[in-house]
């Protein structure tokens, strides 16, 4: 097994394209190393992207935020501008594992591991985040929800690397929020989760909404019918009840060691209500 630590993205893409045998990208390693230790994968080449300076930065520009693929989640939490603009996204990232894990893990790794229960993904989807992808054929920008296609599977072509996550510049009166359900307070994995992102008009009526559910289907669900319920409302009790019903109905979960179908459906609705209220409150304050 070879371990390579390139210092430019071009080198990384080149190495990946020309690697003989199985190649794996290493960001924080908190999924990759666990899978290697468990004997689930045995890569021939490991390409560590943490030495590529450009990937280690969060840049705020006129279009919004560019979050480099190697930025650890702990650093996201320390960026005040990002926290103010996208509290829900940061909330999701900061739920991953523990302090120690967050010192290493990345939201791109979380996305590319393609677990339906990934904690940062629902909020990214609700935020309308995009991924900047670099590959042998050049660059492209795609919606994050198109990347995971099933548990452990992504739509990335061989040789492609995600360079950064792009978040739009925040509009006035906007807020987002994320919550997961876990039996434990930390060091746990979402049984089901929900994220809501809202933009209000000056009267406090929801103008735009995106609702996403995690661990409710093979990939994170973007629930448009739930968003439609919120649009035009002031997130009143009636809207919340209908939101919960729509979210429960949209779930296509499985029965497993972490929860039953009925439980996941019910709690998806409960969490959607709770995060919608938080997002509404946050939006109203700005």
């Amino acid at each position, binding site marked *: 097994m070879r371990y390579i630590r390139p210092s430019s993205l071009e080198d990384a893409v080149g190495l990946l394209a020309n690697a003989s045998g199985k190649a794996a990208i290493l960001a924080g390693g908190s999924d990759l190393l666990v899978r290697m230790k468990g004997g689930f994968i045995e890569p021939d080449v490991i390409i560590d992207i943490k030495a590529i300076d450009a990937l280690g930065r969060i840049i705020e520009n006129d279009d919004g935020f560019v979050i480099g693929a190697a930025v650890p989640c702990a650093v996201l939490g320390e960026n005040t501008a990002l926290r103010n603009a996208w509290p829900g996204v940061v909330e999701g990232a900061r739920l991953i594992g523990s302090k120690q894990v967050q010192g290493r893990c990345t939201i791109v790794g979380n996305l590319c591991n393609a677990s339906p229960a990934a904690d940062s993904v629902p909020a990214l989807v609700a935020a309308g985040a995009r991924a900047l992808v670099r590959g042998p054929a050049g660059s492209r920008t795609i919606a994050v929800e198109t990347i995971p296609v099933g548990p452990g599977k992504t739509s990335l072509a061989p040789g492609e690397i995600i360079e950064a996550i792009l978040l739009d510049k925040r509009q006035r009166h906007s807020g987002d929020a994320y919550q997961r359900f876990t039996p434990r307070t930390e060091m746990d994995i979402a049984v089901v989760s929900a994220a809501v992102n809202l933009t209000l008009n000056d009267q406090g009526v929801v103008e735009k909404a995106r609702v996403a559910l995690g661990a409710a289907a093979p990939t994170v669900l973007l629930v448009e019918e739930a968003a439609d319920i919120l649009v035009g409302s002031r997130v009143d009790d009636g809207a919340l009840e209908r939101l919960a019903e729509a979210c429960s109905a949209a779930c296509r979960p499985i029965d497993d060691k972490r929860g*039953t179908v009925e439980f996941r459906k019910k709690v998806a609705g409960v969490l959607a209500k709770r995060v919608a209220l938080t997002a509404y409150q946050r939006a109203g304050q700005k």
Partner: protein
Amino acid sequence: MTFDPSHAARSFSSVGTRPIRPDGVDKVTGRARYGADFNMPGQLIGRILRSPHAHAVIRKIDTSKAEQLPGVKAVVTAADLPDLTNGDTSMYDILDNCMARRKALYDGHAVAAVAAIDAHTARQALKLIDVEYELLPHVTDVDQAFAADAPLINDTIITKGVDPKPDRASNVSMRSQFGHGDVDAGMAKADFVVERTFRTEQTHQGYIEPHACVANVSSDGTADLWVCTQGHFVYRQHCAQLLGLEASKLRVTSSEIGGGFGGKTHVWAEPVALALSRKAGRPVKLVMTRDEVFRATGPTSATSIDVKIGALKDGTIIAADATLRYSCGPYAGSWAEVGAMTAFACYKLENVRTVGYEVLVNRPKTAAYRAPSAPMAAFAVESAIDELAKKVGMDAVDFRIKNAAQEGTKASYGPVYGPIGIGPTLEAVKNHPHMKAPLGKNQGRGMACGFWFNFGGQTCTDLNIGMDGTVSLAVGTVDVGGSRASLSLVAAEELGIDYAQVRAVIADTSSLGYNDMTDGSRGTFSSSMATISAARNAIKILRARAAQMWDIPVEDVTWERGHAVAKGETHGNLPNLSLKEIAAASGTTGGPIAGHSEIVADGAGVSFATHICDIEVDPETGATKVLRYTVVQDAGKAVHPTYVEGQYQGGAAQGIGWALNEEYIYGKDGRLQNAGFLDYRIPVCSDLPMIDTQILEIPNPNHPYGVRGVGETSIVPPLAAVANAVSNAVGVRMEHIPMSPPRILAALEA
């Protein structure tokens, strides 16, 4: 030894203080050596191949490809561990569990093992072993296994304890029964009756340190084993017997232990490591993965328990009845028997009956877990008692006080109690500020009682006095919870010297006589008795040496506060001789000074506790949060109160985890679904409040200081205390543990 009543009034000088434990600095700095921290030059790495099937005949094992892999030095199967058990069925079961012989009996059952130059090669070698299985129908659920039409796990199991003897095999290895009086007549008189069936799921002890050992069998037939264990003498006995070694030829050294809780009282991989070393002619290190720890070691029983209790209008329990089915894994056990003995032990009952059934299932062999079998029985009984109190219209604590066992009560399992702590713990709970604290919305409070027997057993201790007057104490009971500190306090107390002058070590099996393992809450109880007697033997010698130094009769020398004191009119003015002075002179007064002790520590006093739990339940998700938790337990005498409190807190924490989230989850395929700490959810620190403790001291009449074991009782009440709290919070009786969020939500919506 009997309790010395003068101690009741006596003020101790060392016992009861809270010095830092001798193993503390090394443990917090990472210097302490646990099982996996031991290495030998030239050692190989051992790994075990495990059955992926819950129940299968092993038709053939082809190890030839693995043997040919470069770097592989030995491959063993059951053929390398021939049956030397000579009709001893319980030893045979241990052998079969260490390495499957005819059939694989559970997912994770060892079928072969390799030793190779490194872990990678060993893992590759396992993949090259070909095992031909013939799958058999399996059963993992205790109630399904109990049913008459269940797949049969062992066709030689004929239920014991049933008259007439059954004429065909079943999955029930034994029926046991305890009690007295006439339960049916009693029940007929009852004004109120509660009858329910409760279930608890299988849990693991959850020790953080996996099983680990290094085995070295020399070509001269001697062998060494370094191992993480709760009982190195027992490991020696079992390993020697299974490998055909003489006990004295095998020296076992115990490492520091990162948790055992009963799970490290059984041999698992050690005989395999020895067999590998014997075959390879080199030392073999074998460390289990977490997955192996869950799949192949440890778990406690899953249970299904019917309880029926009747009370009169005035709150007297008139009859109590329980039938308990406990899973044992695929081998005969006596887990339900213990559950049946403990179930009603807290109460004074005229008419009581408990029946236990040991049920074989295709799961790992059940192992002891802290007061084994008692927590589940207490869950069922204490839940029913709570409900009965409500029916009678009495407060839960008052109802228990009215029916609590006392000195002179005939216990439901037979003996008559001496002085016991159930009443005092209940009174303490009744008066505890926790019971009066206000509760908020969606919050509930529950309380429950628990009992454990405690154990004494064989113990051997050496106390050696160095020429500088410091003391080394060689102990044979593995220190699992701070006992080296406690025993050093006891030695200091007896000798009249400072705690810092004593160093206790756990001696290996070649350095001391046989010791039973650290189980049954016996470590401090039994080894403190042995330490007291070793110290008193040493004092006899110290007095004799002083007499010799003074040239006076030994009868005129007493021992007071670390000094020989000359008595009587003729010698009274001789200046005292300190232990240090006597030790310094020992080379010229007869040689080294030591005290030895070999005892059977009889009379471990029974132990009782009462716990209080406040919990909040989220009615929309079933999520729970333990808000406040209090443990009140009788310690007899707390030798080192901080470590007594630690035992109370540790047991409560484990019990809360068991009550709320921990469980083995099996798929329809008979495979364990959650063999890791992600999905086997022990509580993390942020899941628990600080656990309050209150130590009561009702002296054990059989120990010179009144000490009782304290390690296990603390896990007995929590399942019930938490369940009563949840039931009170949501208004629905919880019958199934763990009360995971999906289960609570389902109960709320039922």
